């Protein structure tokens, strides 16, 4: 096994701060799925998600020289991508549809695949219509599996505020998802 794989995220981040790009590459490889998934679930658009995910990686690289391992890297990493997504949304209107939500052009696509595509599209549209902070709280809870304190750290809110946010978000989203229940 490659020696670098045994190092913790925090060690890799400290090494990145000292200019070790191989350490940074390891961090990118470890966390690329999470960063892309958060950005994709939040924006509903694969192109925007790639731009945001890449920018999040670069911000982590920029901040590495100042990084202090006082909190888990995972918490730090989610905070960067969360802030980036929320800032991005403040500046831009959401896109209406993403190509990846369209039904398969292949008429012979299995019914199961078409059904899954329709279900994904339905869920993503239901999410898209929510206020940005509701959507981010739901993405972190249900797609990333973060606990309430972890969501609070990522969003820069208190635990109580996140509990209220999640309650209101669920209340708004649940009627829209009823056809899937």
């Amino acid at each position, binding site marked *: 096994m490659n020696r670098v794989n045994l190092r913790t995220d925090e060690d890799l981040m400290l090494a990145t701060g000292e*200019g070790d*790009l191989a350490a*940074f*590459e390891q961090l*990118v*490889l470890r966390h*690329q*799925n999470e960063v*892309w*998934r958060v950005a*994709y*679930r939040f924006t509903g658009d*694969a192109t925007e998600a*790639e731009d945001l*995910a*890449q920018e999040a*990686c*670069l*911000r982590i*690289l*920029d*901040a590495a020289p*100042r990084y*202090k391992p006082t909190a888990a890297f995972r918490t730090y990493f989610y905070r960067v991508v969360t*802030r980036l997504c929320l800032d991005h949304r403040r500046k831009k209107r959401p896109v209406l549809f993403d190509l*990846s939500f369209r039904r398969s052009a292949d008429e012979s696509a299995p019914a199961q695949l078409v059904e*899954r595509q329709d*279900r*994904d599209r339905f*869920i*993503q549209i239901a999410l898209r219509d929510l206020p940005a902070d509701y959507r981010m709280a*739901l993405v972190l*809870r*249900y*797609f990333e*599996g*973060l*606990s*309430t304190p*972890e*969501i609070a750290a990522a969003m820069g809110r208190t635990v109580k505020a996140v509990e209220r946010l999640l309650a209101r978000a*669920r209340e708004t*989203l*649940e009627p829209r*998802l009823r056809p*899937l*229940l």
Partner: protein
Amino acid sequence: MRCEDLRQALANYAQGRVPVHERQVIEAHLRDCPACRAVLAEMDPVAAALVQSQAPPIPAGFAERAMAAARSRIAKPAATWNPLLWWRTASAPMRGAAAAVLVVGFLGGVMVGRDAVRTPANQAAGVTSPSDPWEGYNLDYLGDAPEGSLANSYLALVSGHDGEGH
């Protein structure tokens, strides 16, 4: 994973209290098992609905593109300093120190500015601000500026005179 095992873990799952690898196993089971999804729906209907969705896979080559962008950024000469970016990434004590420096600088500037306006001549006359900019700012040396010159226009602007002493 058997349904009985999964149902014991569902409460923790709904609270975001299971490790990543275990969550993936639970979600894979939930997507294929309507009975377990129904149990989850009683605890958290939103979780039961959202677990049916799978994000498309990350685009191929993402890490390579991110690393190319990283190398390009590092290769650039010292990037221009971005105060907004600094503020977002700085620690709380650093932000506090920066805010304190700004406040002290602002207050210092105000104090120095007030002292500068209170010249000895003005203080003797009990004047706190120059009523006539010719006197307050010692602009006499510009009095010989030719008509139509920039200095002449400036004098007319600050004094309200027509530039010829009227």
